[in-house]
């Protein structure tokens, strides 16, 4: 398998941005508070199906909380619409039709087998047993876990468990663009943080493919180099605010990233590497007083 640096897509026209409706995620002045602490403040942006959006920012900047508001897990102020529909009004089963969610940590209470876990993705879908089994097998094949059907989830390594969970989510939102509905969405919270480098790239490629087949992908990312290699759009959070949002190449600039992370970063493009790398500014070049 080879990976290619995905050139950024051309900027959409104004017309595409407005009234995206069916194919867009619209977040307007979204805010989330836990008790008195304000975690996310007045965040507004739009994302479109067919694009891979990465949410980056330092730890504690509100990335995961923003994602939880979008997926209906946390209550929020403001307005969040998925395919033109207010997510705070949608029922869990209607939401499950439209989007899959991969949480950061996934623990399972009882010793379910891998195929039982993946099958939970289509828990509300009626269908013949053979069809279900095929969809489960397809999803496991996608994440490189064919033949793991009968294994017990708890016996797997952390990375394998993460891939089983991703297979469950893929099983739920199998076709990025269903015949009779709006494009589906994948919401992933740090999907590759517990994976080795091979599976990091494979899983990111999987998400990128989902986007290129017309689905929406929104991913919370810690790894800036993977973001550089796979994302179409990037949203930067800092202290609960939206610091910047736009095309990858417009966002992944040294000044902006250094500001976001309070850490001097630069972009390096070695001749033999596909995607540019985000690396720290070398110590000897740093001005200690700038820290």
């Amino acid at each position: 398998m080879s990976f290619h640096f995905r050139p950024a897509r051309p900027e959409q026209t104004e017309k595409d941005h407005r009234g995206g409706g069916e194919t867009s995620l619209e977040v307007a002045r979204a805010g989330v508070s836990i008790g008195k602490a304000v975690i996310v403040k007045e965040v507004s942006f739009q994302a479109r199906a067919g694009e891979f959006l990465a949410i980056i920012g330092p730890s504690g900047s509100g990335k995961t909380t923003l994602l939880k508001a979008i997926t209906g897990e946390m209550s929020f102020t403001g307005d969040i619409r998925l395919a033109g529909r207010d997510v705070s009004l949608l029922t869990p089963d209607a939401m499950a039709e439209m989007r899959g969610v991969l949480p950061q940590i996934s623990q399972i209470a009882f010793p379910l087998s891998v195929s039982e876990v993946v099958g939970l993705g289509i828990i509300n879908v009626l269908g013949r047993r053979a069809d279900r089994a095929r969809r489960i097998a397809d999803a496991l094949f996608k994440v490189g876990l064919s033949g793991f059907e009968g294994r017990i989830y708890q016996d797997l390594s952390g990375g394998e468990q993460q891939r089983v969970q991703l297979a469950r989510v893929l099983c739920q939102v199998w076709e990025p663009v269903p015949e009779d509905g709006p494009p589906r969405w994948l919401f992933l919270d740090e999907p590759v943080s517990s994976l080795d480098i091979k599976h990091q790239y494979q899983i990111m490629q999987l998400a990128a493919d989902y986007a290129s087949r017309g689905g929406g992908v929104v991913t919370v990312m810690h790894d800036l180099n993977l973001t550089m290699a796979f994302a179409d759009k990037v949203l930067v959070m800092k202290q609960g605010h939206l610091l910047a949002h736009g095309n990858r190449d417009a966002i992944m600039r040294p000044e902006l990233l250094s500001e976001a992370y309070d850490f001097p970063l630069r972009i390096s493009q070695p001749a033999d590497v596909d995607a540019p790398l985000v690396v720290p500014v070398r110590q000897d070049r740093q001005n200690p007083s700038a820290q």
Partner: protein
Amino acid sequence: MSETAARTGVQGFKNLLGLREARTGNRETLARAVIVLLAAVTALTMLGSLATGPISVPVFDLLPHLTSLSSYSSGAVPEGVSPRDWIVVTEIRLPRVVLGALVGAALAVSGAVMQGLFRNPLADPGIVGVSAGAGLGAALFIVLGNAAFAPVMAVLGIYAVPLAAFAGGLVNTLLLYRIGTRGGITSVATLLLAGIALGALTGAMTGILVYVADDQQLRDLQFWGLGSLAGSNWEKVSSAAPIILVMLFSVPFLARGLNGLTLGEAAAAHIGIRVQRLKNLSILLVAGATGASVAVSGGIGFVGIVVPHLLRLTIGPDHRYLLPASALLGAVMLIAADTLSRTIVAPAEMPIGIITAFAGAPFFLWILLRKRGLTGI
């Protein structure tokens, strides 16, 4: 390391029973076979219990009459049947066996549902204080019913005590859920400790009632502590059966939701489960069935923990199979324990709660030790 050792032990146990390795094969096929087998075993256990006792009764000869409704509606002893045998079976043993089956099924299914709800194999109505709450509700009505709650008693009749037990169980379950669950995550340590505290508190309140009780009430109250099916009659069956049957026939509709809940509350909602409704229904049904069981048979412990756990080892944790299988195995175990309780020290009786505790408590400890690494206690 103890985890591995225990697993090897379980493996050996399964091989000994001739059960195929349930972890890797097709568990659904195995689960169906086990349910059919358990249904047959339940029928046999019921017959065996009917035949057992100080008077030996030819149960197989009575069987055609017992299974035909007309024998009961006529009220007369069927032809060719000894009146003594008929009365012993229909008035003494049959209500007891039926009650045992209902209570056993209710306790085991309540255990399975609670474990699914709390996402923990150690949750059980007896251990976490739900039964104690039900006991307090029942005790309130036994002791003060005719004085303080006379109008209520007049309206509800034989259903007053089961309903009071239901209310007591419900209050404790709701409190427990509130205390044990934060942000969709149930802490098992908090849960067990809070359950123990709630159980002790409600037990103490029941203790106060013991002071004001008269002799007859005292006898009734003592019976809660240990649990017994002695004194079963058709009136008790008809007071408990409606709530328990509603529960047994409703829980299959919760099975898929409980399967989804193994992922945690947030992820269950993401795959389309209406989590809040599922939780409300589960709590209501568990409190109802536990309350009705406690009202007629007192605090019989450990059935709710042993039965689902044994079945999970065999057929896996899929609630679509686990719940019906638990109902059957619960019925079998309670009828068997009750038959034992009225025969080992005959003509006296040993409270059935003692027998289930003797079998169940070591089992509970075994799960704790085996699961220590997973539960983080």
